């Protein structure tokens, strides 16, 4: 897909809106076409115009400067790489900004997060309470003036939260079931028998029908963004392995791509091929884990074991080079940590035909099963408009009819030279997402086969690179198994990042759950949640 800057949009911006600052950027280095600084009152009009022209809100975040906050909006199109950036400035104490949640629904959660992390108030937001931090928390962690909490505060705060929880529970809920009406609230989580991690969904039920449901996040908040501001770039590698531990290779890829573009270096060709092979193997193992847990949610316990066994074979292969099973830390800036060992290529070549045969078996066992079909057909439909309004990416979006894949939209590494399809379905229901992921596994096998054939010999590192990244702002996105993973980096030229914003795909994907579940049964909520394929730590960061 060509990287097309929309000239009429630029013209409109320059003439009609007249931004305070307007800078054309180099797409290859910074990841955006242009950036514009406008007054805070104009952002809603700009957002509406972007929506009319077919853009969606990719990311919304804030940066803490000495004099003001800078609220940064990234917009992009689904059919081409037209990413551009609009900024507004707000005052430091009690800074206000207009909300975009009426125009783009993905702003609902982005703005809540910016509010709790910085203290910016978004006027007109329907529900501006803490998203990731505890409800009673008053700190704004990502402020530069927040230098951390004292030692021992973890136990003190935990005990406080335990007391608050007891108090709130006694106030909020009637003692006996017989006092409840036909409408009642049920918590799904945070301790889930269905292994999604610590997500809590507050369901408002009438009998067994869901009236509405609200995901409550933050039970896995591990302050990645704050950590990355206080340690240097190399020390941030383990963070990326632990954000989405199931698809960690693609997160490695995202970080490597960001920094290499910022520094202006290209890794040697062998490195590119190895990176693609490792990422695609990881994509298969991530989809296998999804398949096993999704079917376990539906009640079929056996495919979980088959899928995990397949996955173990992939983990064995990747362990030969990386030494890790799960939270990979394999890529480095301009290269890799270790080369592929000589017995890896034959192991992969043995794995591919076995896996193809097993995939056929899974299709026979699952896809044509009558009970499975009844549980997934027509459930949890996500329309194309809703998907774009929420900023959904990845297989969920492709199952709703939009052929958006970062490997095609903004091609990186050797993907332009490889021949593979992007599976797309139009129904938008659970079955469509299932089909898209099953086919993606086959496409990944194609990619691995081609890359193995063409892989050249050569060095796997560029040698010593500078320890800092040149001053500037950079945005880069890659295709992770869950969707488009973007990183926005503000670098002041020093050894540490000034601000890193992680635009994780599951964050927006889960946001769309709010529209998918009203009218379902409780059993369907579990099926729909499983089909979105979320990993909690990447949502809560």
């Amino acid at each position, binding site marked *: 897909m060509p990287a097309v800057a929309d000239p009429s949009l630029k013209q409109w911006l320059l003439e009609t809106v007249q931004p305070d600052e307007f800078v054309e950027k180099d797409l290859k280095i910074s990841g955006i076409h242009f950036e514009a600084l406008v007054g805070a009152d104009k952002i809603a009009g700009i957002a509406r115009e972007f929506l009319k022209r077919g853009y969606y809100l990719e990311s919304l975040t804030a940066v803490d400067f000495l004099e003001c906050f800078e609220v940064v909006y990234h917009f992009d199109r689904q059919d081409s790489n037209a990413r551009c950036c609009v900024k507004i400035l707000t005052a430091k104490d009690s800074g206000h900004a207009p909300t975009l949640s009426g125009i783009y629904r993905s702003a609902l959660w982005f703005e809540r997060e910016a509010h709790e992390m910085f203290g910016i108030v978004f006027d007109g937001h329907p529900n501006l309470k803490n998203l990731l931090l505890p409800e009673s928390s008053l700190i704004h962690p990502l402020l530069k003036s927040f230098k951390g909490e004292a030692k021992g505060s973890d136990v003190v705060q935990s005990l406080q939260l335990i007391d608050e929880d007891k108090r709130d529970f006694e106030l909020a809920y009637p*003692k006996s*079931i017989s006092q409840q009406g036909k409408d*009642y609230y049920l918590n799904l989580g945070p301790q889930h*028998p269905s292994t999604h991690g610590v997500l809590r969904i507050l369901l408002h039920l009438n009998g067994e029908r869901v009236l509405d449901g609200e995901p409550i996040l933050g039970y896995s908040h591990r302050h990645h963004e704050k950590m990355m501001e206080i340690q240097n770039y190399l020390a941030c590698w383990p963070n990326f392995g632990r954000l989405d531990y199931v698809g960690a290779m693609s997160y490695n890829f995202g970080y490597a791509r960001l920094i290499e573009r910022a520094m202006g270096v290209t890794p040697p060709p062998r490195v590119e091929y190895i990176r693609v092979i490792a990422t695609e193997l990881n994509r298969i193992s991530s989809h296998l884990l999804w398949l096993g847990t999704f079917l376990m949610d539906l009640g079929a*316990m056996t495919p979980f074991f088959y899928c995990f066994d397949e996955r173990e074979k992939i983990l064995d292969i990747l362990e030969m080079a990386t030494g890790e099973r799960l939270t990979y830390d394999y890529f480095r800036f301009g290269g890799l940590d270790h080369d592929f060992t000589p017995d890896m290529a034959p192991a992969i070549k043995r794995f591919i035909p076995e896996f193809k045969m097993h995939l056929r078996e899974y299709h026979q066992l699952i896809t044509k099963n009558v*009970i499975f079909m009844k*549980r997934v057909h027509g459930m949890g439909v996500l329309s194309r408009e809703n998907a774009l309004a929420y900023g959904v990416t990845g297989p969920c979006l492709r199952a709703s009819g939009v052929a958006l894949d970062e490997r095609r939209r903004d091609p990186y590494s050797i993907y332009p030279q490889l021949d593979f399809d992007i599976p797309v379905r139009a129904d938008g229901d659970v079955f469509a997402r299932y089909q898209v992921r099953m086919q993606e596994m086959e496409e990944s096998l194609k990619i691995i086969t081609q890359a193995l054939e063409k892989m050249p010999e050569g060095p796997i590192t560029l040698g010593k690179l500078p320890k800092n990244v040149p001053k500037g702002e950079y945005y880069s996105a890659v295709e992770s198994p869950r969707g488009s993973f973007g990183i926005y980096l503000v670098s002041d030229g020093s050894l540490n990042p000034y601000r890193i914003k992680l635009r994780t795909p599951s964050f927006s994907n889960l946001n769309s759950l709010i529209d998918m579940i009203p009218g379902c049964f409780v059993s369907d909520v*579990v099926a729909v949640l499983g089909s979105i394929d979320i990993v909690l730590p990447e949502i809560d960061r």
Partner: protein
Amino acid sequence: MTAIFFEAIKIFLYCIAVILFISVNTLFLVWMERKLAGRIQMRPGPLYVGPMGLLQTVADAIKLLSKELVYPSEANKFLYLSAPVLVFAPILSAFLILPLGEGRIIRDLNIGFLLVFALANITFIGIFVAGWSSNNKYALLGSMRAVAQNISYEIPLMLSTMGVVLAAGTLSTTQIVSAQDKGWFLFTLPMGTGLLGFMIFFCSSLAEANRAPFDIPEAESELVAGFHTEYSGIRFALFFLGEYTAIFVSSAIASTLFLGGWHGPWIPGPFWLILKTYAIVMVVMWIRWTFPRLRSDQLMNFAWKVLIPFGILNLLLTAIFIYFEDLLR
């Protein structure tokens, strides 16, 4: 006077025998389930506790016996404590009428298995009471689903056995088994109605025992643990016992009604009954580990729109064919 005394001793001994048998049977069935699940899932299952893991359930049982007994503070104490008993005890009545061999039966009642089905219905009252009295929304949801499911599947359960009753002319289990000496009712009932009746009975008994794919009341991935969420220790063990006994009992009744009971060459009758029963139990367990579960409304659709019409059809066809057979003879 002494006759009544000896009769009372005999009944007492029968009760002890039944309870011993159920305990050993459940121990064995739980082990078999875990081993079978393991083998289907490409792993060994319990292996180290006793030879081949046979003592695993014994360890589980002792552990459950020694657990702390807690109960929720707002629960209705009497109902909460009586629910496990209500779930477990009525199924024991089935052993009254199971014929182990020629003339070997505890009581040859002329209403036979109808009594058992009537008594076994009390089980679902126990499930309902368990869910309601726990003062827990998950338990309540689970028990509501269980009540709807159990009531709906009682009807096809009855209907499918009516064909057998028509062919044998009696409700008494000994006479039904004697009527199968020329061939199992599965095959000898005219025009495949035996097969249809057996399939309906099998599906309904799966649903009655809350087994997959009909295990929505205790759907682990959705409702934490369904109606027995708040039960721990020995009370939870009673629910478990009740479930496995229900599987055994419904398989035993299926083999009595459709598979010829204790008929079979070379080895004595009781072994044939046990063999046939365990064959059906293995199929029940196999199904659990193969299929996903149905949603509650799909479950109800299946009962009311599929099983009951076919059950009525089965009854009509059996009646018509038996009438014409008698006419031709």
